[in-house]
């Protein structure tokens, strides 16, 4: 056993993260109060992104505030035409929630791509949004739905439109003393179509690129509303407004989908060790077409 002796002389046993003080509040207001008061504190949700970074000591905190005991932050409900999801709702619970499948089927489909069953058992909705990885599925879904984030602090609750939530590479509009309490996904009309496709090296890996689509098509085959979001290609999820504008108000057919997917070509994608920009640009177009095709089919249109 590789016991390590810390500078203080304590024999502390095998440890990866730097020492911290652990807090497990039972009341939401206590959690907000701790976050406002404690210096160099971080919130702990499912730990599936934070704890790896602590184990590597990329992240060193003095205080860890565990949200795990806050039942108020768990669960789903329909409020004012939106599906409200508590920040601490586990990804695996959402994956199998009949309510999610019925109201926000795009979210249900995206969840199957978020890591593995073991990480989804612990990982949460709020944790994924706060972490804001550019390749993460759940922020992309929130972007597609034009979600609203409820940010809670000792100062009260502030609503943040998802368009303004992601401010850059793994950065959000949350103030240091704010936590996500819930997120609202506006429910699309029953009978709308959804499509979700990503390309990753292995099932469960972060995507190299992905696309999420929503289509509301009228009985006359005319698109009433369209949303197309790309992820993994920019610092944060990207709504392809040019594609949405091309689809809206026009009849939906194969040519319309081809033209819309071509609009995803215009972006200037990121380039990193996983894939070059050219390749991501190609993927963005291919995956957009697949996602839109699925959405059209589910909306009852054979395009």
């Amino acid at each position: 056993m590789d016991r390590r002796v810390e500078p203080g002389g304590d024999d502390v046993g095998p440890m990866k993260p730097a020492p911290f003080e652990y807090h497990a509040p039972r009341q939401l207001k206590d959690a907000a109060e701790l976050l406002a008061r404690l210096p160099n504190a971080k919130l702990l949700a499912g730990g599936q992104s934070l704890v790896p970074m602590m184990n590597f000591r990329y992240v060193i905190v003095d205080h860890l505030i565990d949200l795990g005991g806050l039942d108020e932050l768990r669960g789903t409900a329909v409020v004012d035409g939106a599906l409200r999801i508590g920040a601490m709702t586990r990804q695996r619970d959402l994956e199998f929630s009949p309510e999610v499948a019925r109201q926000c089927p795009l979210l249900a489909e995206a969840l199957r791509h978020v890591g593995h069953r073991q990480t989804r058992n612990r990982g949460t909705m709020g944790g994924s949004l706060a972490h804001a990885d550019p390749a993460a599925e759940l922020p992309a879904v929130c972007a597609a739905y034009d979600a609203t984030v409820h940010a809670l602090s000792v100062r009260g609750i502030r609503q943040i439109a998802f368009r303004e939530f992601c401010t850059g590479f793994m950065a959000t509009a949350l103030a240091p003393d704010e936590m996500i309490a819930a997120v609202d996904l506006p429910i699309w009309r029953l009978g709308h179509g959804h499509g979700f496709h990503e390309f990753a090296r292995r099932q469960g890996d972060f995507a190299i690129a992905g696309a999420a689509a929503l289509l509301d098509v009228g009985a006359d085959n005319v698109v009433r509303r369209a949303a197309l979001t790309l992820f993994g290609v920019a610092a944060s999820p990207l709504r392809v407004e040019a594609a949405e504008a091309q689809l809206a108000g026009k009849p939906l057919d194969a040519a319309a989908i081809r033209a819309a997917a071509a609009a995803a070509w215009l972006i200037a994608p990121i380039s990193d060790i996983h894939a070059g920009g050219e390749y991501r640009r190609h993927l963005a177009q291919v995956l957009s077409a697949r996602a839109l095709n699925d959405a059209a089919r589910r909306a009852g249109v054979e395009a």
Partner: protein
Amino acid sequence: MGKQATRVMVNGKSYARVVDARLTLADFLRHELNLTGTHLGCEHGVCGACTVLVDGRTARSCLMFAVQANGCAVTTVEGLAPDGQLSVLQQAFIDNHGLQCGFCTPGMLMTLTELLGDTPEPSEQDVREALTGNLCRCTGYAGIVAAALDAAQRLRGTVAKPGSP
């Protein structure tokens, strides 16, 4: 700094300890309770060797602190064969060459125990998808997948006759 009391039920037995808050559940199991069946490969959530059941659901014990498990029931690989009697799944691993060096095996067994609990009739695709979170450097997975499908069949009481497909 950061000492904390935690009480965890492990394999049906209750343990109360005062530990460093930063002690992972994996190190707690291995070094405090001497349950060394839970293995540590990567210690950042990728390999799955450290998988245990927390309140019946798989979790990576390298990504949980022991203090988070306060009040939880944890099952480790030792809990699969409490009286030395191998579980159906463990026996199927032996019969189907589901392990070579054995390093990944505890995690594989815990993941598949959960899968067989929620999916009694898994397809090969179901098994492979469940195993995406567990890395094996030896077997090439074929034996592990065969073991899982065999165990599922045995648990349903419909064992295929030797030689039949």
